[in-house]
């Protein structure tokens, strides 16, 4: 189904695809984004992995050629890794710190 969506999207030169299946696939990341916007506090939203992933997913659907662009992949994974490390590193540092 997603292949249909990306084909459709490609045919429309990056515009949002209009077929039923494409719309259904669009609805998933859109739904995820909406859910997070409604439930996660604005302070957490920027580093929220669901938001980052949903935006990546959305871009991949709407702009299939852009979605596989190395810069977008690198940017998304860097953001996700930074989110992880920022949250977990204090614990790792504490465990390593206790070794001294």
């Amino acid at each position, binding site marked *: 189904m*997603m*292949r249909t969506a*990306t084909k459709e999207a490609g045919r429309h030169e990056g515009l949002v695809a209009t077929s039923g299946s494409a719309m259904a696939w669009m609805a998933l990341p859109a739904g995820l984004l909406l859910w997070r916007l409604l439930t*996660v506090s604005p302070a957490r939203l920027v580093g929220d*992995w*669901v938001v980052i*992933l949903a935006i*990546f*997913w959305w871009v*991949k659907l709407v702009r299939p050629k852009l*979605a*596989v662009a*190395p810069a977008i*992949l*690198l940017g*998304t*994974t*860097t953001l*996700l*890794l930074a*989110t*992880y*490390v920022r*949250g*977990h590193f204090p*614990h*790792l540092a*504490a*465990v*390593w710190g*206790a*070794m001294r």
Partner: protein
Amino acid sequence: MILGAAGLLAGNAASLLGAHAILRRVGASTGHAGFVAILVVRLALISMAVLLAGCLGILSPLGLGLLSLGALIALLACGEHRHLGALPRPRLPWWIWTLAILLAARLALQVLLSSPHVGDALNYYLPKVAEWVRAAGFTREMGNHPQAAFPAGFELVEAWWTVFLRHDVLIEAAGVEFLFLGAAAVASLGVSIGLPLAWGALAGILYALTPGLYFSATSCLNDAPIAGLIVATAALVVSGAGLPLIALAAGLGLGIKPTYGYAIPGLVLLALFLHARASHAKLPRWVWVGFGSSAAVLGLFWYVRNVVWFGNPFHPLGSAGVFRPVPIQFGADAGSLSKNLLALINVRFSDQAGPYGALVDGIAGWGPVAFALGPLGLVAAWSENRTLRLLALGSGVSLLSVLVLIIHDPWCFKYILFFPAVLVLSAACVASRYPVLIPILVAAAVYQVAGTFVSYDLPAKDIRTLAQQPWSQRTALAFSEHPLPRTAGVVGYFGVDFRGSGDAYLLYGPDFSRRIVYLRSSDPDGLVREMASQGVELLYAVPAVDTDKRTLKEAIGAGKLIPVAGRYYALP
């Protein structure tokens, strides 16, 4: 000790050679899951050997040693060793071998330096192993903890690594076996989804480095073995290994913990998706009978024992009031699914609530590779990789079916350590296709390597203490909150520690030389009488329920027990 080590070597050689011989004769098409199949059959063989020895009362260095030696001689006489040359040798780049060897060396060091230290293992898994080793066979005595009656399939493998030496210095190797199994299974799945062998192997290594899985495996917990077996079952299903072999893996899993069964819906779905590739139709009848009966014995033994002893296969689950201090969910609960899923997405997936540890307290323990590259890789590969898609769907269904069946508590995600496998595979998939992501993958992998040196539940100062002890006396009792105040040949154990801070297993000593008497009297006179009649020199008391607290208090109040130190008491 030297004879014991020789027995252990003979046993391991015989089980590996035996597994290879069986699979060679079966002729099942396991493809690149061949190594997974050998590990599964080996684990089944050693579990069956310990089960048999335990039932016959020959679970001793001599009994198991002779059994192993006999099997090895028979296999060598049949010329099985000559067929080892036909084993496929994976052609992997030097850096994969280097990484694998370095990590294996680190694991070996962690096994040697560690001592069982996590409460669950000390209170209700390992006292059984200690009793079996002391009695050279299975015993009715399993300790005071109600959960001691749970299935003990993993304890069979722990007993294997313990009986020969009559010492627990290698006991963590049991968990490491399952860690290898999980890594091999992920590598096999990697090849199945179309990754080059090197990338598949890397995915396997990264899965083994999943922090929660890694520390569970090196801490004598049975959750890593369950995760390893779930992933191994998936690898066997995907490779079309045939139903008998898959049933054997399932038998091993169910015999270890019912949580393996919680994940079965996803595995069945995966098998249905890929049923056309199964090769079981061609297998001879003896394979069906042999593998099927072994799977049934391994999977059902403990449940049948519980029916015979307690009238309930899941004893003590379902008994009113037993789990008031530590509740365990018995059956499905939509509320648990909702709470677990939201906690996973909102908090625990990012591991930000706490440090890595064997029980993944308040976190998922999946690590940065799964977090930063897993979901993205899955989305990126979803439309292009059918096998990965089906694997993800199957794993997703297993994830949901486990989450609906487990209570929501700080440690509940130790039951879903199989799921990072699909995320790690997705990560490898996307990084292999887009080399620009390799630095991110490397950075995340380095973080996981750094994070799996020391866990918060066995901090560096404790490892240092363990390392300073002679290996033959190495025990975590040395840094327990309640160290043994003086030498005693017989120690009484009274009460149940539901919070996991009891030291039941450690009291036996690393060489199982100390006799532990579990005391169950509900009145002070009975307790004292029992101590005297059993020759108890010291009493270790962890009264958690009201009757036990009252009994201990009255015994002390009446001068029938004298406090020695901490949790220890003695007769006047």
